[in-house]
């Protein structure tokens, strides 16, 4: 099967003359052998990858955060049992089975890492960015968190205690950021739009909206947005 399969693959890429990187060559070899042996279904790969590119990402966590900001009872449930409260909004699955939500306050700032590999709460944040997986972040955030956060643009007052969470076991962490000032009139959707991935990892704060919108009517979810089907 080997030569035939390879030729077919090469043919499919005839209009893509860039030389293949060693990693790409290996990935193709692996996929050809696994699909050839019936171990892996290529359409399954397409489906799962597309889900993580379109539907499973930080917009999910942002909805959790926005809900907690506007609904005190939800916030209480979220901090008491993250997994269950997150499931209320329809999010769950691999790397999200055991969620703990940690809340930033004026006196304590939380930040999440996985020093041993790159564990990350996929259902609410999607797949991790490169910096989260980098040796520099994994090595340094537990040793000099204040300096690392400052380098990344988050300068914290000395009076703020930094709490680093190393995801070394089965728990996955989501940071509940502080609701920024000048957002009293925003809708839950507008609030969710303010919440960034980095704020939910803990390397940033949620910024106030740049132009205060005191009389703007609540925005609707854009009609072209895909439904969440995690």
């Amino acid at each position, binding site marked *: 099967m*080997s030569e035939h399969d390879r030729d077919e693959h090469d043919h499919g890429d005839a209009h893509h003359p860039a030389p293949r*990187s*060693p*990693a*790409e060559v*290996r*990935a*193709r*070899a*692996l*996929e*050809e*052998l*696994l699909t050839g*042996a019936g*171990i*892996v279904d290529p359409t*399954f*790969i*397409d489906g*799962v*990858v597309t889900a*993580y*590119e379109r539907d499973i*990402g930080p917009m999910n966590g942002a909805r959790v955060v926005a809900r907690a900001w506007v609904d005190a009872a939800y916030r209480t449930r979220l901090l008491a049992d993250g997994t269950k409260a997150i499931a209320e909004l329809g999010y769950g699955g691999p790397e999200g089975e055991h969620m*703990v939500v940690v809340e930033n306050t004026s006196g304590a700032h939380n930040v999440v890492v996985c*020093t*041993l*590999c790159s564990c990350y709460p996929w259902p609410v944040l*999607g*797949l*991790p*960015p*490169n*910096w989260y*997986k*980098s*040796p*520099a972040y*994994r*090595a*340094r955030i*537990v*040793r000099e*968190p*204040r300096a*690392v956060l400052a*380098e*990344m643009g988050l300068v914290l007052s000395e009076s703020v*205690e*930094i*709490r*680093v*969470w*190393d*995801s*070394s*076991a*089965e*728990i996955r962490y989501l940071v509940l950021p502080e609701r920024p000032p000048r957002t009293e009139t925003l809708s839950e959707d507008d609030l969710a739009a303010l919440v960034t991935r980095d704020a939910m990892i803990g390397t940033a704060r949620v910024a106030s909206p740049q132009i205060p919108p005191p009389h703007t009517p609540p925005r609707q979810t854009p009609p072209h947005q895909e439904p969440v089907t995690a």
Partner: protein
Amino acid sequence: MNGIHDLGGMDGFGRVVVETDEPVFHEPWERRVFGMLAAISFTRVANAHVYRHAVERMDPQHYLDASYYERMMTGLATLLVERGMLDRATLDARVPGGFPLARPPHPDAVADAQQTVAADAESARDASHGAASPRFHVGDAVRVRNFQPHGHTRCPRYVHGRCGVVVRVDRPFALPDLAAHTDRVHREPTYGVRFTVAELWGAPAAARDTVCVDLWQSYLEPADTVTR
């Protein structure tokens, strides 16, 4: 194992480089690798601990040179070869210079994991009759035992021998040290244990910052006093 993957506290890496507007995948092959891992994980041919240990066993030089998805691909291919689902020679034949895999497990890996459990007599006894009542409670002072198995563990090297305080008791989970090397499922409570940076790094005691590490019961022993 005290592997290169156990990066917490290592100096010398420089600044954290943040890419703005980063895509989920940077190369088409990364998409395929992630999809293959997801597909294989559905087949239950191996658990996450087996997979993680396969990545950890990469040559340290390769580990640092490789991107996240190259590490993923190497770990995946390694475990599939080790489980007999892929033929190494067939794989090598398709890649110029061969397909680099991770190293085999250390010969002492299984014995070390069994010793880790045996050393926590209470855990061992609980598991033997199916129970798993937590030995520690929120507020307890604990010390991380000085155990350094050659096989898989989720106890980072930077907490060895360090004292902390239990801040959370989680439900029992399978001990990775055994699950990565044997079919034995040994569930025991895990704990969120908070350490001060002063305790971890000998930093000035004024630093109030803390690191919470999640640790299985077998990794811990009672401590009389602890730096809070």
